[in-house]
Structures are given as structure tokens and as C-alpha cells.
């Protein structure tokens, strides 16, 4: 079973074979409100850990989605273009943003696990 890892910016990442799937957490989508637009990078684009990988927009504002790990964009979730509301409806599943070919799987180790992230958001409120 693939485990979720989390960033302090409320992105999640999990391994699926040799690709890392990236999305935003349920907490993030509830803070954002209704998502109306998602801007995804091009396939082949390189992202660096901690740097902007995508943009997610609510009615009120645009927010950056940061890459939790470094790598090359292998797939993007085109379904979000037609139906950005998927990010709200299923943020941890069908609302995924990009799949990355990882530069260094060890980058995952420094991210929070599910328990750690739960505690982290409890501290936020």
C-alpha cells in the first residue's frame, strides 16, 4: 500500500511504481474554497523541490502548488482542466495534479507522514 507524505504547504505525494503522484490535501482544498481553475506544467518540465509546480485558483484568489520533491513531469491530470471541482471533491484521489519521475526518492524521507501532518494542521488551527 503506498503511503502518503505531506509538506508544510499542504501538498501530498505518494509513490506509484516509479512515479510520484502530487496533489493538495483535504485541509488545503477546504481552506481554498471552490476551485475554478488549475494550471498545470508541461510534460517534460523539470520541477525542483519547494519550487512552484502548478497553480490552483479559487473564486477569490490564485495559490501556488509547490513540488514536494524534485523531478520531471511525466503526466498531468488533464481532467482538472474540464472539471477543476475534482480538487475539492476528491483531493487525495482523482484531484491529483501531476506525476513526477523522481530525481531522488530519498527526498520523500524528510516529508511528514500522515500522523505528523495531522498534528501539524492541528497546530495551525
Amino acid at each position, binding site marked *: 500500500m503506498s503511503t502518503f507524505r505531506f509538506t508544510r504547504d499542504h501538498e501530498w505525494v505518494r509513490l506509484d511504481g516509479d512515479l510520484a503522484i502530487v496533489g493538495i490535501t483535504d485541509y488545503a482544498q477546504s481552506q481554498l*474554497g*471552490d476551485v*475554478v*481553475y488549475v*494550471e498545470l506544467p508541461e510534460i517534460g518540465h523539470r520541477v525542483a523541490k519547494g519550487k512552484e509546480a502548478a*497553480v490552483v*485558483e*479559487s*473564486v*477569490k*484568489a*490564485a495559490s501556488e502548488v509547490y513540488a514536494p520533491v524534485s523531478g520531471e513531469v511525466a503526466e498531468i491530470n488533464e481532467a482538472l*482542466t474540464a472539471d477543476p471541482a475534482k480538487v475539492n471533491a476528491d483531493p487525495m484521489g482523482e484531484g491529483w495534479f501531476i506525476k513526477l519521475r523522481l530525481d531522488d526518492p530519498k527526498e520523500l524521507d524528510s516529508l511528514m507522514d500522515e500522523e505528523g501532518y495531522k498534528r501539524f494542521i492541528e497546530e495551525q488551527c
Partner: protein
Amino acid sequence: MTLAATAAPLKRTPLHSLHLALGAKMVAFAGYEMPLQYPSGILNEHLHTRAQAGLFDVSHMGQLRLGGGDALNALEALVPGDLLALASLHLRYTLLLNEEGGILDDLMVTRLDGGLFLVVNAARREADLAHLRTRLGRSTTIELLEDQALLALQGAAAATVLSSFCEGIARLGFMTARETTLAGYKCLVTRSGYTGEDGFEISLPAAGAAAVAEMLLARPEVRPIGLGARDSLRLEAGLCLYGHDIDETTTPIEAALAWTIGSRRRAEGGFPGAAVVLRQLSEGAPRARVGIRPDGRAPAREDTPVVNTAGEKIGRVTSGGFGPSTGGPIAMGYVDRRHAPAGTPLALLVRGTARPAQVVRLPFVPHRYYRG
């Protein structure tokens, strides 16, 4: 943990506890703690308002009464609108102008027996009061109604809903007022609003605000609506937000608000900035407020640069976002007047990339004001 800087505590409207009880997400706006949205979210609140009825707490806005025998003449000297022709229990949208013809505020003026009732923007209340106190003259009294709430009931079902509490209100003419009673409280109801839909604004004592709000919310057609949807509704309706689409640097002509200038005022002048405004009326203004529709899906927000097809900067977005009823991104902004005609192609610089767009006529969603 970050502590806020020593800012003054936020003011609360009379419906503050109700908003919390309804699960509102609160935000700071014009020095007030206001509901941004309720649990249903901005999109649903917006769509519900057009389809049925939305109840808005707009008690943060400034409500003023002007009295004394000369209030009408005195106020008319400060605005470009024809106030002398305003009949009793009628209201008008108008603008306070400065000596350069720039807009100090936009407001609603209702003529009542013995005086005028004004509703001004929350963020401009202090500035407007100072301006009026300086310019109105001693014989006009100015009273800020500090213990008064203001609710807005807007949408296709607003008249049906209000009729169940107020006999005959469905036939109240657009931009007219009626003094009535709701839940036992004396109210001034006007047929007006900020959504482009049919609707009413209800001014009443703060003590009665919760009772009236709860009475209206008990109707199945009515849902509470926050500032987030208020903004998307007015943007779709092509209505200005002071401090964004209009400010002290914009004249009524540039702002596409020439319609607020009465024909007698065009002939006579006699309002601040008349020379500038009347010259712009006859010769045109260098820039114009227009509707802008991006061709793609990316919203373009306030301050987005607008460029022509050659990539030269020709303006900026002053309000922009997503239109839930239009299903796509929409914006308003100012462009150099040569690029103002509807259909003019332009581009919006969003995150460093030029996104194609075009000038479109306002409003984005047709108005549905009550025309009897």
C-alpha cells in the same frame, strides 16, 4: 505562532453571532469582521442568489441622514446627479466628486419626507463624513446612523419571499422606497441592490436585525450569502467596487458612469470637477472602463497588465475573477480609449504569459431589475 500587529480590533455588525452560528468563515473587511462565505461555499451562494434568494448582511456600510430645509440643494452641489428631480421615496445612484472630477465615493441617495437617506461604502464612511461636514453648509444636518443595520435580500425569489411578510411589496417600483414594519421593527425598504438581480435593501434598527434575518432565513428560498459571492455577483453585473474600479483618479466618464450625470447638470455644471467632466463628455476621456473576457480559462485578477496585440501596455485589470453564472473568467479594467470598443482583441499578462482576451460589453449577466 504569528501575532497580529497592534491593529485596532475589528468592528462587528449586529449579525455577528448569527454569522458564527451559521458557520461563516469570517474575514476582515473595511475594519469589520464580515462573513466571506458560509459552509456551502462561494460558488453555491452565488448561484443560489440568482436562482432563488440570498440574504446579505451589509450593515458595515455607512447609513446617513441629511436634514434641514436645504439638504437636497446642498447635496446636489457635490454630485453630478439630478437630485432636485428626485421625488419623495425615490432613490438614485450617484457619485461624490472632487475638484478634478475624480470619484470620492459612490452612493445611494433616497429622498424622504424631511430629508435624505444615504448609503455609502464602509471604507469611505469617515472620508465622506468629513467631506460632507466641510462642504454641506451649516443649515444641513448630518446624522450617522450608528445603531442601524442594513440587510439585502436579492434574487429571483426575493419579492415572493418579502411579500409573505410585507403586503404589496412585490409591486414596489425599482429604485423606490417604502417605510414599513418587519418582525415588529420599523424598516425602510428600497427596491435596489448590488447583484443585478431583483431585490431589496432593508434598513432597520440594529436591535431588530437578528430577528428579521432569522425570519427571512426561515424561508426555504433564502440562504445567507457572504462577501465572496457578493463580489462575484456584482462583477458579473458590471457594477463598480470603490477603491478598485473607481477611485479618486477616475472620472465618471472614464468609469462609464456618464449616465449618472443629469441633463440639467450637463447644461449647468455646478458640481465639483464639472469643467473636467464636461470636457470629457464632449471630447472623450483618454481611457475607459470596459468588460474583459479572457479567451482561455485562467482568471486575470486586479492589477493584471492589459496589452494590445503588439504587446504594448494599454491598461490594467481593476476587478477580475471567475463568474459562476458565466462559467468562466471575467474581468473589468481600464484600457486606452482606442482599445475600448467591444470585440477589440487584447492580452492579459498573467504569471508572465500573455493570455488572449477581448473587450466585451457589460454586464456579463443581464440585469433582471423589476420593471413593473
